[in-house]
């Protein structure tokens, strides 16, 4: 019994504890900073890890004096839509490459890979040109359209890996039963790759809501901005950083998302281990 408990301690609680500490300490710092008045923040005399005189001023200022709520809405809209597009395109690319031998597969594979050869700091000037010619400057469509360029290849490759973990026998059985390729994909393969879509979806959503450079170039009016760009434009003024508000923005921008993630992860993993893989 003791061996079990100490081994569990070693195998689970210690590594978990350390990881959580490493991952979350900065958030503790962000929280503490967002609750401190400027005077307390700059004071080196007090213990920096505790808030001595908490204030909600930064949160209030953030919400009332900036367009933070609008930015948040924009960010969600953009992230969800680009994620949906990326998952769709990703799956469309992944399935044939994972399962079907077809002429030109190598070329397609290479083309997707080559997408990532192009670094963002290079892409954005000509991309800005395209967006402007399409008249999409300052619209959320501009980023919804351009974000998938960053996301599709990864989604495709991740999904390819997951598609391949589906035993070919299952698909063959379906085909023999008379199902078409599309049907097989939708009815057999996709459900088994739930975790893959979740991972890819989380990845895509997060990258989309984090993205900075394209949003900076294409979204110039404060009403259409996303959180990263809006926060930096209005809360970083020259060499004066509005630390409290910036940290408040960081927390308000990420904690709700984390809560939503916790639901997704639970749902799909539970569904999977419920036994759809067995038999």
């Amino acid at each position: 019994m003791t061996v079990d408990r100490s081994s569990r301690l070693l195998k689970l609680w210690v590594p978990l504890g350390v990881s959580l500490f490493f991952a979350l300490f900065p958030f503790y710092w962000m929280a503490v900073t967002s609750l401190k008045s400027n005077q307390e923040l700059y004071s080196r005399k007090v213990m920096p890890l505790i808030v001595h005189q908490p204030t909600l001023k930064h949160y209030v200022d953030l919400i009332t004096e900036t367009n933070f709520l609008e930015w948040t809405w924009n960010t969600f809209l953009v992230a969800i839509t680009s994620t949906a597009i990326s998952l769709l395109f990703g799956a469309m690319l992944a399935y044939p490459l994972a399962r079907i031998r077809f002429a030109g597969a190598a070329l397609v594979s290479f083309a997707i890979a080559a997408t990532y050869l192009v670094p963002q700091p290079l892409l954005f000037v000509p991309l800005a040109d395209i967006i402007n010619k399409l008249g999409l400057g300052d619209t959320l469509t501009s980023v919804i359209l351009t974000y998938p360029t960053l996301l599709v290849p990864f989604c495709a490759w991740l999904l390819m890996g997951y598609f391949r973990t589906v035993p070919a026998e299952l698909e063959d059985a379906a085909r023999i039963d008379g199902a078409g390729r599309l049907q097989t994909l939708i009815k057999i393969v996709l459900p088994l790759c739930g975790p893959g879509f979740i991972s890819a979806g989380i990845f895509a959503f997060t990258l989309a809501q984090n993205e900075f450079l394209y949003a900076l170039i294409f979204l110039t009016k404060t009403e259409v901005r996303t959180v990263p760009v809006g926060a930096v434009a209005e809360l970083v003024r020259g060499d004066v950083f509005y630390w409290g508000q910036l940290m408040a923005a960081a927390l308000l921008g990420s904690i709700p998302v984390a809560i939503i993630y916790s639901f997704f992860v639970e749902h799909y993993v539970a569904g999977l281990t419920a036994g759809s893989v067995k038999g």
Partner: protein
Amino acid sequence: MARIVRAQSRRDVLKTGAVAGLGTLLGPVAGQAAPKSLTMMHESSFIPPYDAYFKNDLARAYEKATGIKVNYEVVSVGSLLTRVTTAAENSTGPDLTAIGFNWAYLFDDKFVDVTDIAAEIGKESGGWYETAQEAVVVNGKWKAIPFGNIGQLMNWRTDWFKQAGYEKFPETWDELLEAGIKLKKAGHPFGFELGHGFGDNHGWLYPLLWSYGAREVEADGKTIAIDSDETARAVDYCRRLYKETMLEDCLGWTDVNNNKAFLSEQISCTNNAESILWAAKKDFPDMAKVIDQSENPKGPKGRFHMLNPLCHSIFTHTEDKKAAKDFLRWLMAPKQCGAWLDIAVSYYQPFLHAYDDAPFWKVEPRNLPYRDALKTSHLPGWPAPLSRAQSESVAKYVVVDMFAKACSGKSTKEVIADAKAQLTQIYKAA
């Protein structure tokens, strides 16, 4: 280039056709008649009331007077150049923009010639400072209207300096070094930026270089002059100043660090714009009482400062150049310009002599040195004339890194050789 141009025009035809088609369905496209609106792009001022004043007062006043709506687009200081670049490259975007440094030269072709209104404004407001013209006159034409300088001067703690025996700010660099050694011993070191920021590093390193008689390139714009005894002396001084008076961290400081360090009472002296005093008055009134601002110390060859001009330009892609020019002219008239400068309480030091004795200087007399420094302020790259090589040198931090590497241990000879090699390559290609 031709291939791209042709491809683009083909695309243009398609797109314009589509848009035009949609346009006729949706109604008149803005901009076919007299412009109903103008957009001005600006860096976000660290003085929020300044931005607010434009949006709420100036824009509204103009709309009332002329019917033209003026939009104000705010970009963070670090991102402004990127936005201007994209706008210029794609010939689309805001009508007017704030610019800095030598951008009037960089974007020469894309900015409207405003020599005529510049002359009017100068006449109306006591004439322009000559140093301002360094930044905006390209091939004899004014490509921007200077608005104000964002000076970088010495910010220091009068109480601690007094304790060390200094009632006034040191006159020369050597005196500053002496003071710094004493102050570091007393637990109040200096903190000057040596990292890859955008202002507080250049703000003292270029003046340091110049005050020793050194320069990157001669006035002919071609001869690389960085390899000289004067430069070596400046570098040696800087190394001493760093080692004997500063925090180690300064090597990696970007612009926000010295503000933070000063306001948290870590350092007794730094080079900065007026933002430290402004923030102190707002949040640390007791500390604000013992802060003062002074001109840069003198070197063997004089006293210098960084010219950091905020100017306004009109993009050539604007639909109605006259409307844009009229707006800019209106903006720079004493009533508007004076009020806008007033809100900023001398954070932007005006380039027009009419404002030399403006009331806002009396509001905070400690900001007066920023005005006095205008006469001795120059752009990085001085005494060479405006050029792209100058931008490249700044973007590659040639001068900053030369000093920084010396401070972190490299030999003076080596760092100067490196800088020379870089400048040779940069100015050769230009």
